[in-house]
């Protein structure tokens, strides 16, 4: 089951709002479609990210895909676990496999989807 305490994007990212901060990751659907993750390129703390723009990339044995920011913000931390164990993205995409923690600077995009809407989007409703 997908968590209901996060919001989703059509680019298969999720965002969990925690006050002024937020945690961003990719969904279980994306992780499964992409296959085994071998490398994740994430921004340094202090980097500004903006809605809809690429903030990093995720490399699997099949392809390299851009990661798109769901909201505006400033990067506080990139998940240190992914440096040595990128497989966390596949194993636990909503938990240990999170990508970045940010300070949210813009209002949340109205395009964000609920769990129900996202599951319908990927044809699993």
């Amino acid at each position: 089951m997908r968590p209901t305490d996060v919001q989703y994007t059509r680019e298969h990212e999720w965002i969990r709002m925690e006050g002024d901060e937020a945690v961003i990751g990719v969904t279980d659907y994306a992780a499964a479609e992409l296959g085994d993750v071998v490398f994740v390129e994430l921004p340094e703390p202090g980097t500004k990210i903006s809605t809809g723009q690429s903030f990093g990339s995720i490399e699997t044995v099949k392809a390299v895909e851009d990661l798109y920011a769901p909201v505006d913000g400033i990067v506080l931390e990139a998940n240190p676990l992914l440096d040595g164990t990128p497989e966390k993205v596949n194993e636990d995409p909503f938990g240990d496999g999170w990508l970045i923690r940010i300070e949210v600077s813009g209002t949340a995009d109205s395009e964000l989807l609920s769990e129900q809407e996202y599951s319908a989007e990927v044809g699993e409703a």
Partner: protein
Amino acid sequence: MSQREVLTIFERSRKGRPGYLPPALDVPEWELPAGLGRSTPADLPEVSESEVVRHYTNLSVKNHHLDRDFYPLGSCTMKHNPKVNEQLAALDGFTSLHPLQDVSQVQGALEVMVELEEHLAAITGMDAVSLQPAAGAHGELLGMMVTRQYHLARGDAHRTRVLIPDSAHGTNPASATLVGFTAESIRTAPDGRLDVDALKESLGDDVAALMITNPNTLGIFESRIVEIAEAVHEAGGLLYMDGANMNAILGHARPGDMGFDLVHLNLHKTFGTPHGGGGPGSGPLCVVQRLEPYLPYPRPVREGDGFTWRLHPPEGIFEQRIHGTYGNFLVLVKALAYILRNGADGLRRISDMAVLNANYLKVRLQDVFPVDYPDGTLHEFVASGRELKEKGLHTLDVAKRLLDLGYHAPTIYFPLVVDEAMMIEPTETETLETLDAFAEAMIQIRREADEDPERLREAPVTTPVRRLDETRANRAPVVCWGGHCD
């Protein structure tokens, strides 16, 4: 397979076991100035001649290549490599040259380069060519360097965006990014062509170029290319063609006539030179006149009845370098031989056959593996293995099973716009019997997916190694052996 067969040539080495005896010294001995000689011997393998021959013969049998069987690797264009080209490139007059020899001694080599440049310009409808890039992506990189210099020279330093369709080769955004541009993706329309409306929305006075492959990676001709060219030019940008698929339109359409400003060619995809075991390649860049000053120097040129080097660009133009000398020369010899041997009619017929073969296979296979963008197929098409997902099978399993049946797999999981993609591109010289046999193999695999899915899941069983752990190879690659692992 015995352990002995998997040894590297270095592991086979035994001290003092020569495979070659150099001729006796017949010139005066000369002492190298101090500091120029190496202090430790070169780490070269010492093996007997028969060991060398056996080693590489065994490797060649384990590998799949065009000399063994059909190789429908989409996007890569596994061209027929005529053996006569190898004979020509092996001529002493070509192989014994030194890149710094006096021009009076290398007139023939310069003529080969100038003539090849002229032919490539005529074929693409462009004005000037650089033969220096050592591969397709290298040609792209040079194309982006030229684009940047052009805009800088016009005071347009703010043009930093390069637009690229989402079906493009991954090298396109990489080349743009390396030069300092920002790559931006433009979506594909439902007919498999670039979404021209989305392009027009993205165009602006900060756009440096649109990089587009024509025909694109779905094997479809961008039929609105003239309109696209006008829109890009109106916005002040340059139009770059990734010429990877030029094989489909030789003698039928020229990038210059479509409005392109730059195009790179892959001589190994379009002009019959071997892909080689990772090289050497050649990716010449062809440009229109206004971009010619920004090509790298030195350039081979005609002078009177002969040939010479033009060493530097016109006054005031930044001199760019992309290759140590003048490109991979022997590859150029093979490409010129290919062009001269086939002639204009022959080249056009090569494209005809490439397109006919791809369309034949598409029609034979589209009921078995669906083709999302079925209209306007040229030299390749993209089928999907998505219907196998409900059986827990994937395109990867089809690809592995093909190896058991003696074929190289198509390109898989590319382009990204097709789910479970299988990109099939038959070589233009294949016989009808070969195409039919491959189609039958694909049909057999589709049937096995329903009746005996384990067979796909376990494949390959006939190859020297079974399924490799690609994930571990990427996460923790081991690229050294024995005592050489420091």
